[in-house]
Protein backbone atom coordinates (compact mmCIF):
# COMPACT_ATOMS: atom_id res chain seq x y z
CA UNK A 1 0.00 0.00 0.00
CA UNK A 2 2.82 2.35 0.94
CA UNK A 3 4.53 1.55 -2.37
CA UNK A 4 1.35 2.29 -4.31
CA UNK A 5 1.05 5.67 -2.57
CA UNK A 6 4.62 6.48 -3.55
CA UNK A 7 3.85 5.62 -7.17
CA UNK A 8 0.85 7.97 -7.17
CA UNK A 9 2.95 10.80 -5.70
CA UNK A 10 5.70 10.18 -8.25
CA UNK A 11 3.18 10.20 -11.10
CA UNK A 12 1.70 13.49 -9.89
CA UNK A 13 5.16 15.01 -9.63
CA UNK A 14 6.26 13.89 -13.10
CA UNK A 15 3.13 14.40 -15.12
CA UNK A 16 1.83 17.36 -13.13
CA UNK A 17 5.12 19.19 -13.69
CA UNK A 18 5.12 18.34 -17.37
CA UNK A 19 1.55 19.57 -17.73
CA UNK A 20 2.42 22.83 -15.98
CA UNK A 21 5.39 23.41 -18.29
CA UNK A 22 3.17 22.64 -21.26
CA UNK A 23 0.67 25.21 -20.08
CA UNK A 24 3.40 27.85 -19.78
CA UNK A 25 4.67 27.00 -23.26
CA UNK A 26 1.16 27.21 -24.68
CA UNK A 27 0.66 30.67 -23.19
CA UNK A 28 3.95 32.02 -24.54
CA UNK A 29 4.44 33.51 -28.00
CA UNK A 30 4.90 31.32 -31.05
CA UNK A 31 8.45 30.52 -32.12
CA UNK A 32 8.91 31.34 -35.79
CA UNK A 33 12.57 30.29 -35.82
CA UNK A 34 13.57 28.22 -38.82
CA UNK A 35 14.81 28.24 -42.36
CA UNK A 36 12.06 29.57 -44.60
CA UNK A 37 11.93 29.59 -48.39
CA UNK A 38 9.75 31.04 -51.10
CA UNK A 39 8.25 28.95 -53.87
CA UNK A 40 6.91 29.91 -57.29
CA UNK A 41 3.44 30.44 -55.84
CA UNK A 42 4.51 32.20 -52.65
CA UNK A 43 3.85 35.80 -53.66
CA UNK A 44 0.55 37.65 -53.76
CA UNK A 45 1.44 41.13 -54.92
CA UNK A 46 -1.20 43.62 -56.11
CA UNK A 47 -0.19 46.67 -58.11
CA UNK A 48 0.70 49.63 -55.93
CA UNK A 49 -1.21 52.88 -56.20
CA UNK A 50 1.58 55.36 -56.75
CA UNK A 51 1.59 59.00 -55.75
CA UNK A 52 1.15 61.58 -58.53
CA UNK A 53 4.74 62.71 -58.09
CA UNK A 54 6.11 59.31 -59.11
CA UNK A 55 6.61 59.99 -62.79
CA UNK A 56 7.96 57.56 -65.40
CA UNK A 57 11.16 59.60 -65.37
CA UNK A 58 11.51 59.16 -61.64
CA UNK A 59 10.84 55.42 -61.90
CA UNK A 60 13.46 55.10 -64.66
CA UNK A 61 15.96 56.96 -62.51
CA UNK A 62 15.25 54.65 -59.59
CA UNK A 63 15.57 51.59 -61.84
CA UNK A 64 18.98 52.83 -62.99
CA UNK A 65 19.98 53.29 -59.35
CA UNK A 66 19.00 49.70 -58.59
CA UNK A 67 20.78 48.37 -61.68
CA UNK A 68 23.96 50.05 -60.44
CA UNK A 69 23.50 48.47 -57.00
CA UNK A 70 23.08 45.02 -58.54
CA UNK A 71 26.01 45.53 -60.91
CA UNK A 72 28.31 46.39 -58.01
CA UNK A 73 27.04 43.73 -55.59
CA UNK A 74 25.78 46.30 -53.08
CA UNK A 75 23.94 45.00 -50.02
CA UNK A 76 20.37 44.49 -51.18
CA UNK A 77 18.52 45.73 -48.13
CA UNK A 78 14.75 45.72 -47.80
CA UNK A 79 12.56 44.63 -49.39
CA UNK A 80 14.78 42.75 -51.85
CA UNK A 81 16.56 40.67 -49.19
CA UNK A 82 13.25 39.16 -48.04
CA UNK A 83 12.65 37.97 -51.63
CA UNK A 84 15.70 35.73 -51.60
CA UNK A 85 16.03 32.72 -53.90
CA UNK A 86 17.60 30.80 -50.99
CA UNK A 87 16.07 29.99 -47.58
CA UNK A 88 16.20 32.80 -45.06
CA UNK A 89 17.26 31.94 -41.51
CA UNK A 90 14.99 33.42 -38.84
CA UNK A 91 16.16 33.00 -35.25
CA UNK A 92 14.01 34.19 -32.40
CA UNK A 93 15.71 35.05 -29.14
CA UNK A 94 14.50 36.66 -25.95
CA UNK A 95 15.35 40.27 -26.75
CA UNK A 96 15.67 40.21 -30.50
CA UNK A 97 15.16 38.21 -33.62
CA UNK A 98 17.80 37.96 -36.33
CA UNK A 99 17.10 37.22 -39.97
CA UNK A 100 20.11 36.11 -41.97
CA UNK A 101 20.25 35.76 -45.73
CA UNK A 102 22.18 33.53 -48.10
CA UNK A 103 22.62 36.44 -50.44
CA UNK A 104 24.38 39.79 -50.54
CA UNK A 105 22.55 41.41 -47.65
CA UNK A 106 23.33 42.37 -44.10
CA UNK A 107 21.39 40.55 -41.37
CA UNK A 108 18.19 42.07 -40.04
CA UNK A 109 17.84 42.70 -36.31
CA UNK A 110 14.26 42.89 -35.02
CA UNK A 111 14.39 44.15 -31.45
CA UNK A 112 11.64 43.41 -28.94
CA UNK A 113 11.53 47.06 -27.87
CA UNK A 114 8.85 49.64 -27.42
CA UNK A 115 10.44 52.42 -29.43
CA UNK A 116 12.94 53.22 -32.16
CA UNK A 117 16.20 54.94 -31.30
CA UNK A 118 16.51 58.65 -31.77
CA UNK A 119 16.64 59.06 -35.56
CA UNK A 120 18.81 62.15 -35.10
CA UNK A 121 21.68 59.87 -34.15
CA UNK A 122 20.72 56.78 -36.14
CA UNK A 123 22.73 56.23 -39.32
CA UNK A 124 20.18 55.12 -41.94
CA UNK A 125 20.73 51.64 -43.38
CA UNK A 126 19.45 49.38 -46.15
CA UNK A 127 17.40 47.43 -43.58
CA UNK A 128 16.45 50.32 -41.30
CA UNK A 129 15.69 49.98 -37.58
CA UNK A 130 13.11 47.35 -36.69
CA UNK A 131 11.17 46.95 -33.46
CA UNK A 132 8.89 44.00 -32.84
CA UNK A 133 5.95 43.10 -30.61
CA UNK A 134 3.48 40.25 -30.39
CA UNK A 135 -0.16 40.92 -31.16
CA UNK A 136 -1.70 37.57 -30.23
CA UNK A 137 -0.13 35.00 -32.51
CA UNK A 138 1.15 37.65 -34.91
CA UNK A 139 4.55 39.28 -34.74
CA UNK A 140 4.24 42.91 -35.77
CA UNK A 141 7.48 44.54 -36.90
CA UNK A 142 7.78 48.29 -37.43
CA UNK A 143 10.71 49.61 -39.47
CA UNK A 144 11.96 53.13 -40.18
CA UNK A 145 15.45 54.57 -40.64
CA UNK A 146 15.99 53.44 -44.20
CA UNK A 147 18.65 54.84 -46.46
CA UNK A 148 16.93 55.47 -49.77
CA UNK A 149 20.24 55.89 -51.58
CA UNK A 150 21.64 52.45 -50.82
CA UNK A 151 20.91 48.94 -52.03
CA UNK A 152 18.10 47.70 -54.24
CA UNK A 153 15.05 49.82 -53.54
CA UNK A 154 12.28 48.53 -55.80
CA UNK A 155 9.18 47.37 -53.94
CA UNK A 156 7.12 44.46 -55.29
CA UNK A 157 3.99 45.79 -57.00
CA UNK A 158 5.53 49.20 -57.75
CA UNK A 159 7.24 52.05 -55.99
CA UNK A 160 10.53 52.10 -54.19
CA UNK A 161 12.07 52.52 -50.75
CA UNK A 162 13.12 56.02 -49.74
CA UNK A 163 14.61 57.45 -46.56
CA UNK A 164 11.06 58.36 -45.49
CA UNK A 165 9.59 54.91 -45.98
CA UNK A 166 7.77 53.20 -43.13
CA UNK A 167 7.31 49.44 -43.26
CA UNK A 168 5.02 47.35 -41.08
CA UNK A 169 5.36 43.57 -41.35
CA UNK A 170 3.08 40.97 -39.82
CA UNK A 171 4.53 37.47 -39.37
CA UNK A 172 2.12 34.62 -38.63
CA UNK A 173 2.50 30.85 -38.68
CA UNK A 174 -0.02 28.87 -40.71
CA UNK A 175 -0.70 25.20 -41.36
CA UNK A 176 0.62 23.98 -37.99
CA UNK A 177 3.86 25.90 -38.42
CA UNK A 178 4.68 24.61 -41.88
CA UNK A 179 4.02 27.98 -43.54
CA UNK A 180 4.98 31.50 -42.52
CA UNK A 181 2.73 34.27 -43.75
CA UNK A 182 4.42 37.65 -43.99
CA UNK A 183 2.39 40.70 -44.89
CA UNK A 184 4.32 43.83 -45.87
CA UNK A 185 2.71 47.27 -45.72
CA UNK A 186 4.70 50.20 -47.04
CA UNK A 187 3.79 53.79 -46.31
CA UNK A 188 5.51 56.73 -47.93
CA UNK A 189 3.50 59.78 -48.94
CA UNK A 190 5.96 60.72 -51.69
CA UNK A 191 5.72 57.27 -53.31
CA UNK A 192 2.32 55.73 -52.51
CA UNK A 193 -1.14 57.21 -52.79
CA UNK A 194 -2.24 54.76 -50.07
CA UNK A 195 -0.45 52.13 -47.99
CA UNK A 196 0.78 49.36 -50.26
CA UNK A 197 0.26 45.85 -48.91
CA UNK A 198 1.35 42.48 -50.29
CA UNK A 199 1.94 39.03 -48.82
CA UNK A 200 4.63 36.37 -49.10
CA UNK A 201 4.12 32.84 -47.80
CA UNK A 202 7.33 31.06 -46.90
CA UNK A 203 7.54 27.31 -46.64
CA UNK A 204 9.53 25.80 -43.78
CA UNK A 205 12.71 24.15 -45.05
CA UNK A 206 13.50 20.60 -43.90
CA UNK A 207 14.56 20.47 -40.25
CA UNK A 208 18.05 19.24 -41.05
CA UNK A 209 18.69 21.96 -43.65
CA UNK A 210 22.30 23.16 -43.54
CA UNK A 211 22.94 26.88 -43.99
CA UNK A 212 24.93 27.56 -47.14
CA UNK A 213 27.46 30.32 -47.82
CA UNK A 214 25.81 33.21 -49.65
CA UNK A 215 25.63 33.11 -53.43
CA UNK A 216 28.83 34.68 -54.69
CA UNK A 217 28.76 38.13 -56.29
CA UNK A 218 31.94 39.37 -57.94
CA UNK A 219 31.69 42.99 -59.09
CA UNK A 220 34.88 42.58 -61.11
CA UNK A 221 33.60 39.64 -63.17
CA UNK A 222 33.53 41.25 -66.63
CA UNK A 223 31.37 38.54 -68.17
CA UNK A 224 28.78 39.08 -65.45
CA UNK A 225 28.93 42.86 -65.91
CA UNK A 226 28.44 42.46 -69.68
CA UNK A 227 25.49 40.13 -69.10
CA UNK A 228 23.82 42.62 -66.79
CA UNK A 229 24.35 45.58 -69.08
CA UNK A 230 23.31 43.69 -72.20
CA UNK A 231 26.51 44.68 -73.94
CA UNK A 232 27.02 41.16 -75.27
CA UNK A 233 24.54 38.60 -76.56
Amino acid at each position, binding site marked *: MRFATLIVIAAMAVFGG*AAARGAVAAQSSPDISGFWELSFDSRRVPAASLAPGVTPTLLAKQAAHDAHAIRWCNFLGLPAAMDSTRPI*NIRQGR*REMVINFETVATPRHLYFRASH*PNMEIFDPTTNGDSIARWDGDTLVVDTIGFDGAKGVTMIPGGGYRTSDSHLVERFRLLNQGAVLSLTFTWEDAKVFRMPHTYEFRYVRAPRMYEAQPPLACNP*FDEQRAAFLSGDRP
Partner: protein
Amino acid sequence: MTTALRAIGVLLLVVATTVAAQQQSAAPMPDLEGGWVRIDVDGSGSFNGLAAKFLRAVLTPTAQAAVAEQAKRAAQPRFDFARDASKPKGAGEGYVVTDGNCTLPGGVEPNSAAFHLVQSREQVLIVRENPGLPRTIYIDGRAHPDLSRWAPTAVGHSTGRFEAGALVVETIGLTAGNVTAGGWRTPETRLTERYRVSSDGQRLTITYTWQDAKVYVKPHTYEIVSERTPPGSWAFESWCDSSDPNQRLSIVPPPQGK
Protein backbone atom coordinates in the same frame (compact mmCIF):
# COMPACT_ATOMS: atom_id res chain seq x y z
CA MET B 1 -0.91 -7.13 -8.45
CA THR B 2 2.33 -6.38 -6.61
CA THR B 3 4.31 -7.25 -9.74
CA ALA B 4 2.17 -4.93 -11.83
CA LEU B 5 2.61 -2.10 -9.34
CA ARG B 6 6.37 -2.61 -9.31
CA ALA B 7 6.43 -2.53 -13.14
CA ILE B 8 4.50 0.75 -13.14
CA GLY B 9 6.88 2.09 -10.49
CA VAL B 10 9.93 1.25 -12.57
CA LEU B 11 8.33 2.86 -15.62
CA LEU B 12 7.61 6.03 -13.67
CA LEU B 13 11.15 6.13 -12.37
CA VAL B 14 12.47 5.90 -15.94
CA VAL B 15 10.17 8.73 -17.05
CA ALA B 16 11.11 10.81 -14.00
CA THR B 17 14.81 10.32 -14.73
CA THR B 18 14.36 11.32 -18.35
CA VAL B 19 12.39 14.44 -17.44
CA ALA B 20 14.98 15.35 -14.82
CA ALA B 21 17.76 14.94 -17.37
CA GLN B 22 15.91 17.19 -19.81
CA GLN B 23 15.44 19.82 -17.12
CA GLN B 24 19.13 19.66 -16.23
CA SER B 25 20.23 20.08 -19.84
CA ALA B 26 17.87 22.99 -20.32
CA ALA B 27 18.57 24.77 -17.03
CA PRO B 28 22.20 26.00 -17.10
CA MET B 29 21.86 27.97 -20.33
CA PRO B 30 23.90 31.19 -20.19
CA ASP B 31 22.41 34.41 -21.52
CA LEU B 32 24.72 35.07 -24.44
CA GLU B 33 22.23 37.03 -26.49
CA GLY B 34 23.08 40.53 -27.63
CA GLY B 35 25.83 42.64 -29.14
CA TRP B 36 29.46 42.15 -28.11
CA VAL B 37 32.66 44.06 -28.84
CA ARG B 38 36.11 42.57 -28.46
CA ILE B 39 38.22 44.38 -25.89
CA ASP B 40 41.95 44.75 -25.39
CA VAL B 41 42.35 43.08 -22.00
CA ASP B 42 46.15 42.99 -22.21
CA GLY B 43 46.54 46.66 -23.07
CA SER B 44 48.16 45.86 -26.40
CA GLY B 45 47.18 49.24 -27.81
CA SER B 46 46.57 48.11 -31.39
CA PHE B 47 44.40 45.59 -33.18
CA ASN B 48 47.45 43.73 -34.46
CA GLY B 49 48.79 43.54 -30.92
CA LEU B 50 45.72 41.90 -29.42
CA ALA B 51 47.23 38.41 -29.70
CA ALA B 52 50.79 39.44 -28.85
CA LYS B 53 50.65 37.90 -25.38
CA PHE B 54 48.96 34.65 -26.42
CA LEU B 55 51.03 31.48 -26.07
CA ARG B 56 52.40 30.60 -29.50
CA ALA B 57 51.24 27.42 -31.19
CA VAL B 58 53.61 24.47 -31.18
CA LEU B 59 53.38 23.03 -34.67
CA THR B 60 54.46 19.78 -36.27
CA PRO B 61 57.14 20.06 -38.99
CA THR B 62 54.47 19.55 -41.67
CA ALA B 63 52.38 22.41 -40.32
CA GLN B 64 55.46 24.62 -39.97
CA ALA B 65 56.13 24.10 -43.67
CA ALA B 66 52.52 25.02 -44.53
CA VAL B 67 52.77 28.23 -42.46
CA ALA B 68 56.06 29.15 -44.15
CA GLU B 69 54.55 28.59 -47.57
CA GLN B 70 51.57 30.77 -46.68
CA ALA B 71 53.90 33.52 -45.42
CA LYS B 72 55.75 33.41 -48.73
CA ARG B 73 52.48 33.84 -50.64
CA ALA B 74 51.40 36.70 -48.37
CA ALA B 75 54.67 38.53 -49.05
CA GLN B 76 53.96 38.68 -52.79
CA PRO B 77 53.08 42.17 -54.05
CA ARG B 78 49.35 42.71 -53.61
CA PHE B 79 47.78 46.14 -53.75
CA ASP B 80 50.19 48.35 -51.79
CA PHE B 81 51.03 45.84 -49.10
CA ALA B 82 54.46 45.07 -50.52
CA ARG B 83 55.30 48.57 -51.70
CA ASP B 84 58.64 50.13 -50.94
CA ALA B 85 58.10 51.61 -47.49
CA SER B 86 60.96 54.06 -48.05
CA LYS B 87 58.86 55.83 -50.69
CA PRO B 88 55.77 57.21 -49.01
CA LYS B 89 52.83 58.31 -51.11
CA GLY B 90 52.58 61.96 -52.02
CA ALA B 91 49.87 64.33 -50.93
CA GLY B 92 46.48 63.31 -52.33
CA GLU B 93 47.71 59.90 -53.41
CA GLY B 94 45.95 57.26 -51.36
CA TYR B 95 47.27 53.97 -50.11
CA VAL B 96 45.40 51.19 -51.89
CA VAL B 97 44.65 48.46 -49.37
CA THR B 98 41.98 46.25 -50.98
CA ASP B 99 40.83 45.18 -54.43
CA GLY B 100 37.51 46.90 -53.71
CA ASN B 101 35.57 43.67 -53.40
CA CYS B 102 33.10 43.92 -50.55
CA THR B 103 32.86 40.20 -50.03
CA LEU B 104 34.93 39.05 -47.07
CA PRO B 105 35.27 35.46 -45.91
CA GLY B 106 34.58 36.16 -42.26
CA GLY B 107 35.99 33.79 -39.68
CA VAL B 108 35.45 32.08 -36.37
CA GLU B 109 36.86 34.89 -34.23
CA PRO B 110 35.46 38.37 -33.71
CA ASN B 111 37.24 41.19 -35.49
CA SER B 112 37.19 44.93 -34.89
CA ALA B 113 33.44 45.17 -35.48
CA ALA B 114 30.78 44.19 -32.98
CA PHE B 115 29.21 40.77 -33.31
CA HIS B 116 25.68 39.83 -32.37
CA LEU B 117 24.51 36.57 -30.94
CA VAL B 118 20.97 35.23 -30.81
CA GLN B 119 19.93 32.02 -29.06
CA SER B 120 16.99 30.10 -30.44
CA ARG B 121 15.81 26.64 -29.46
CA GLU B 122 17.73 24.76 -32.14
CA GLN B 123 20.46 27.14 -33.14
CA VAL B 124 22.80 29.84 -31.94
CA LEU B 125 23.44 32.38 -34.68
CA ILE B 126 26.35 34.82 -34.63
CA VAL B 127 26.43 37.63 -37.16
CA ARG B 128 28.90 40.41 -37.71
CA GLU B 129 28.38 44.06 -38.49
CA ASN B 130 30.76 43.90 -41.42
CA PRO B 131 30.74 41.50 -44.36
CA GLY B 132 31.57 37.90 -43.63
CA LEU B 133 29.88 34.58 -43.15
CA PRO B 134 27.68 34.17 -40.09
CA ARG B 135 28.34 31.43 -37.53
CA THR B 136 25.51 28.94 -37.58
CA ILE B 137 25.82 26.75 -34.49
CA TYR B 138 23.38 23.86 -34.45
CA ILE B 139 22.23 22.81 -30.97
CA ASP B 140 19.58 20.40 -32.26
CA GLY B 141 21.69 17.30 -31.81
CA ARG B 142 22.81 16.93 -35.41
CA ALA B 143 26.27 15.59 -36.20
CA HIS B 144 28.97 17.14 -38.37
CA PRO B 145 28.68 16.22 -42.04
CA ASP B 146 31.10 13.83 -43.67
CA LEU B 147 33.97 16.08 -44.75
CA SER B 148 34.10 14.34 -48.14
CA ARG B 149 30.74 16.03 -48.83
CA TRP B 150 31.56 19.40 -47.29
CA ALA B 151 33.02 22.44 -49.05
CA PRO B 152 35.31 24.05 -46.44
CA THR B 153 34.51 27.63 -45.44
CA ALA B 154 36.00 30.26 -43.14
CA VAL B 155 33.44 29.34 -40.46
CA GLY B 156 33.25 25.58 -41.04
CA HIS B 157 30.47 23.43 -39.61
CA SER B 158 29.61 24.01 -35.95
CA THR B 159 27.57 22.10 -33.43
CA GLY B 160 27.01 23.21 -29.86
CA ARG B 161 25.83 22.11 -26.45
CA PHE B 162 25.40 23.73 -23.06
CA GLU B 163 27.74 22.39 -20.42
CA ALA B 164 28.21 23.71 -16.88
CA GLY B 165 26.83 27.13 -17.75
CA ALA B 166 28.90 27.49 -20.91
CA LEU B 167 28.12 27.12 -24.58
CA VAL B 168 30.58 24.59 -26.00
CA VAL B 169 31.00 24.71 -29.78
CA GLU B 170 32.77 22.12 -31.90
CA THR B 171 33.84 23.11 -35.41
CA ILE B 172 35.43 21.25 -38.32
CA GLY B 173 35.42 21.83 -42.07
CA LEU B 174 37.36 25.08 -42.06
CA THR B 175 39.40 26.26 -45.01
CA ALA B 176 43.16 25.74 -44.65
CA GLY B 177 44.93 28.80 -43.33
CA ASN B 178 46.51 30.68 -40.49
CA VAL B 179 45.24 30.57 -36.93
CA THR B 180 45.85 33.23 -34.26
CA ALA B 181 49.23 33.09 -32.45
CA GLY B 182 51.10 31.08 -35.04
CA GLY B 183 48.60 28.31 -35.53
CA TRP B 184 47.45 26.50 -38.66
CA ARG B 185 44.27 24.73 -39.62
CA THR B 186 42.97 22.33 -42.24
CA PRO B 187 39.42 21.08 -42.82
CA GLU B 188 40.15 18.17 -40.46
CA THR B 189 41.34 20.43 -37.62
CA ARG B 190 38.92 20.52 -34.70
CA LEU B 191 38.20 23.79 -32.94
CA THR B 192 36.49 23.72 -29.55
CA GLU B 193 35.15 27.01 -28.21
CA ARG B 194 33.74 27.64 -24.75
CA TYR B 195 31.53 30.73 -24.41
CA ARG B 196 31.27 31.88 -20.78
CA VAL B 197 29.49 34.99 -19.54
CA SER B 198 30.64 36.78 -16.39
CA SER B 199 28.33 36.71 -13.39
CA ASP B 200 27.23 40.30 -14.06
CA GLY B 201 26.47 39.37 -17.69
CA GLN B 202 28.70 42.10 -19.08
CA ARG B 203 31.74 40.15 -20.29
CA LEU B 204 31.96 37.22 -22.65
CA THR B 205 35.08 35.07 -22.61
CA ILE B 206 35.59 32.70 -25.50
CA THR B 207 38.26 30.04 -25.05
CA TYR B 208 39.59 28.64 -28.32
CA THR B 209 41.28 25.24 -28.40
CA TRP B 210 42.66 23.92 -31.68
CA GLN B 211 43.42 20.21 -31.96
CA ASP B 212 44.85 18.24 -34.85
CA ALA B 213 47.57 15.62 -34.42
CA LYS B 214 48.89 16.41 -37.91
CA VAL B 215 49.20 20.12 -37.09
CA TYR B 216 49.74 20.63 -33.36
CA VAL B 217 52.23 19.01 -31.02
CA LYS B 218 49.80 19.92 -28.24
CA PRO B 219 46.40 21.65 -28.25
CA HIS B 220 46.67 25.36 -29.03
CA THR B 221 44.60 27.48 -26.63
CA TYR B 222 43.90 31.17 -26.09
CA GLU B 223 41.06 33.42 -24.92
CA ILE B 224 39.27 36.40 -26.39
CA VAL B 225 37.22 38.69 -24.18
CA SER B 226 34.35 40.88 -25.31
CA GLU B 227 32.12 43.42 -23.63
CA ARG B 228 28.35 43.62 -23.95
CA THR B 229 27.07 46.60 -25.93
CA PRO B 230 24.97 49.05 -23.88
CA PRO B 231 21.24 48.44 -23.41
CA GLY B 232 19.19 50.01 -26.19
CA SER B 233 22.04 49.96 -28.69
CA TRP B 234 21.61 48.56 -32.17
CA ALA B 235 23.63 46.78 -34.81
CA PHE B 236 25.43 49.01 -37.28
CA GLU B 237 25.58 48.35 -41.00
CA SER B 238 29.08 48.40 -42.44
CA TRP B 239 28.38 49.79 -45.88
CA CYS B 240 30.66 48.86 -48.75
CA ASP B 241 30.41 49.86 -52.42
CA SER B 242 32.83 48.30 -54.88
CA SER B 243 32.08 50.99 -57.45
CA ASP B 244 33.54 53.65 -55.19
CA PRO B 245 37.29 54.07 -55.87
CA ASN B 246 37.75 55.33 -52.32
CA GLN B 247 36.63 51.92 -51.13
CA ARG B 248 40.12 50.61 -51.94
CA LEU B 249 41.96 53.23 -49.98
CA SER B 250 42.96 53.60 -46.40
CA ILE B 251 44.55 57.01 -45.76
CA VAL B 252 45.21 59.71 -48.31
CA PRO B 253 48.14 61.85 -47.20
CA PRO B 254 47.10 65.51 -46.93
CA PRO B 255 49.28 68.39 -48.16
CA GLN B 256 52.04 69.07 -45.65
CA GLY B 257 52.84 72.53 -44.24
CA LYS B 258 56.19 74.04 -45.22
